[in-house]
């Protein structure tokens, strides 16, 4: 090969490489290389950019310079004893969580949360999908638990139901609920052992006869359309071992009441027998792969991991992490309904970072209510940049967390009182002047109120500046009729609450002097909906 040819080959190769590099950079644009990846591990970078797993280093790198803090990686080391010798099983109480950094220990057995596990996406809404023998029944069928193989060959796993003497049908109650306007799909596996011709197996609502069923022996579908339903459908398809089928029925509830769903074998004969296995009740009008729900703490699906989580009772459960030298830095808590970052959390030497009962150290009151079950946390003794936060969130999404909760638009009108009392209703003792609202303490209980339509079951972050507080003033902020003192206390000026009562149309700041004259001045009242990042995309 001549020198010229060699040079030309190098140039050709260079062009190829340049094209490859350009293509690569296009793909990973917006996905900075995960810090901490082994040098030149471009394959992991590309996989991450293509939607693959965020590497472990997305979080571990936060501590690469020896920062103090804590990260209980994947909740992999969780124990029922404070010494950390007995690993906790799913559903058990947690005494200790080992972490990269500082471990968490709850020495009081009455204050311990529980360990759970569930796929990232939980679709089966039932609390118990398999123990059908434990459900309440109508017309007293003879029920034999663990009577036969399930559709996929596991021995002693299906439940046998037999129509009792003198009966022509039976029902299994509460295989889900359908709320007004909601679409739901129910499904259950069945295998007829001995069922009379023209008997029907189907799904129905509490107040009506079976609405969607298949008739034996040929499993002919029948939908008896009745008032209060839409999108009604039913189907049975063979699945698993010989003789097994999966029955599904979808419907939209248009009636004005919530309905209980039942599974019903009707037009049968006493002595008819049918095996039933794994029920599912899910949102939408499509049946999906079955998920086993042993309890709300123990959910599995074949082919998918079930990342661990911690369930606090939101009453008194708390997990403390001690910092002997104190701590100042950012704390992130990742939950299955949303995640939260609290900047510049300060803990004195020897103090604890507490997660629970309803918030974590430094965060607004009640925030754990909006985060749901907790899949992990990071405490890092420094300020995190936006890339670091995004990577940590991406990592914990793989473990079942939702993204950071973002604040929606301001919902309070004239919250800074710059337009006087416009928009506000003032109870006795309240005045608005000079851009602030003041309660003079002459009344026992008095309410400052603004009409505001908020969505039921959504979480809202409220704040106000607490300018004057003479005395141990009890005040609150509530959608209900009584002061919401339990969230706010007497010092905090922010909190997270959920609207639970559809009848309420106002936000309220309630003051109370309880017989003592106390003054109270506030400003900058704010209410914003907390929205998971996923909903903003």
């Amino acid at each position: 090969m001549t020198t010229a040819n060699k040079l030309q080959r190098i140039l050709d190769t260079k062009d190829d490489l340049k094209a490859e590099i350009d293509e690569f950079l296009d793909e990973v644009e917006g996905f900075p290389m995960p810090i901490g990846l082994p040098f030149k591990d471009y394959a992991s970078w590309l996989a991450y950019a293509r939607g693959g797993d965020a590497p472990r280093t997305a979080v571990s790198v936060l501590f690469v310079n020896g920062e103090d803090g804590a990260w209980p990686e994947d909740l992999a080391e969780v124990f029922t004893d404070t010494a950390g010798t007995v690993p906790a099983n799913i559903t058990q109480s947690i005494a200790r969580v080992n972490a990269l950094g500082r471990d968490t220990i709850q020495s009081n057995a009455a204050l311990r949360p529980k360990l759970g596990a569930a796929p990232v996406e939980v679709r089966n809404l039932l609390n118990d999908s398999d123990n059908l023998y434990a459900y309440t029944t109508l017309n007293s069928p003879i029920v034999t638990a663990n009577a036969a193989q399930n559709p996929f060959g596991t021995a002693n796993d299906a439940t046998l139901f037999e129509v009792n003497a003198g009966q022509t049908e039976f029902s299994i109650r509460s295989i889900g609920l359908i709320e007004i306007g909601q679409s739901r799909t129910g499904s259950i596996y069945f295998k007829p052992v001995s069922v009379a011709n023209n008997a029907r197996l189907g799904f129905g609502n509490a107040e009506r006869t079976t609405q969607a069923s298949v008739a034996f022996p040929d499993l002919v579908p029948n939908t008896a359309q009745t008032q209060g339903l839409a999108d009604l459908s039913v189907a049975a398809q063979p699945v698993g071992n010989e003789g097994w089928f999966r029955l599904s029925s979808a419907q939209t509830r248009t009636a004005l009441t919530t309905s209980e769903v039942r599974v019903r074998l009707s037009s049968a004969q006493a002595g008819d027998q049918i095996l039933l296995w794994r029920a599912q009740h899910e949102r939408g009008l499509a049946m999906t792969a079955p998920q086993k729900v042993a309890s709300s703490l123990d959910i599995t699906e074949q082919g998918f991991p079930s990342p661990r989580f911690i369930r606090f009772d939101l009453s008194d459960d708390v997990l403390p992490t001690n910092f002997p030298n104190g701590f100042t830095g950012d704390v992130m808590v990742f939950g299955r309904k949303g995640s939260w970052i609290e900047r510049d959390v300060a803990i004195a030497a020897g103090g604890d970072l507490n997660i629970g009962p309803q918030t974590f150290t430094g965060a607004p009151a009640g925030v754990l209510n909006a985060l749901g079950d907790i899949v992990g946390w990071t405490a890092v003794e420094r300020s995190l940049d936006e890339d670091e936060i995004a990577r940590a969130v991406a990592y914990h999404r793989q473990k079942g967390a939702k993204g950071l909760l973002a604040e929606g638009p301001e919902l309070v009108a004239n919250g800074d009182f710059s337009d006087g009392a416009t928009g506000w209703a003032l109870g006795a003792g309240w005045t608005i002047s000079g851009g602030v609202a003041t309660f003079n303490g002459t009344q026992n209980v008095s309410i400052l109120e603004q009409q505001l339509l908020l969505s039921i079951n959504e979480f809202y972050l409220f704040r106000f500046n607490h300018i004057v507080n003479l005395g141990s003033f009890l005040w609150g902020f509530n959608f209900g009729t009584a002061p919401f003192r339990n969230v706010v206390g007497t010092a905090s000026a922010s909190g997270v609450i959920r609207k639970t009562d559809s009848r309420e149309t106002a936000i309220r700041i309630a003051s109370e002097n309880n017989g003592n004259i106390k003054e109270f001045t506030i400003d900058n009242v704010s209410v914003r909906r907390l929205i998971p990042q996923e909903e903003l995309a």
Partner: protein
Amino acid sequence: MNYSAVLIIPADLKPQADAVGEGMGWGPESYTIPLSHDEGETVTHFALRADVDAQFIRWIRGQDPLPDTSAEPILGALIADFSPDPDDDEKPILWGRAHLDAVLAEHGFVTI
């Protein structure tokens, strides 16, 4: 089987109640939820919520003799609620905060 327990004691009995809890192996301070009765301003009671077994319920309800007689003075003032209730099938099954809130509402308490 585990049951959700909500226990409420008058504030002046908190030291004794915590001591009983510690004797059971819970820890030095179990009653950590301050309450006020009838929406008052001061702390009048303390509560705890925990998971317990059937034997615990039998002790509290006097169906079995207490293993620790020092708990007897507290029992007279104790408000205890269990879910599910082994002696009442009709009561709704609640856990965690929902259980605590239901018991507080039933007995006229608010958290402080």
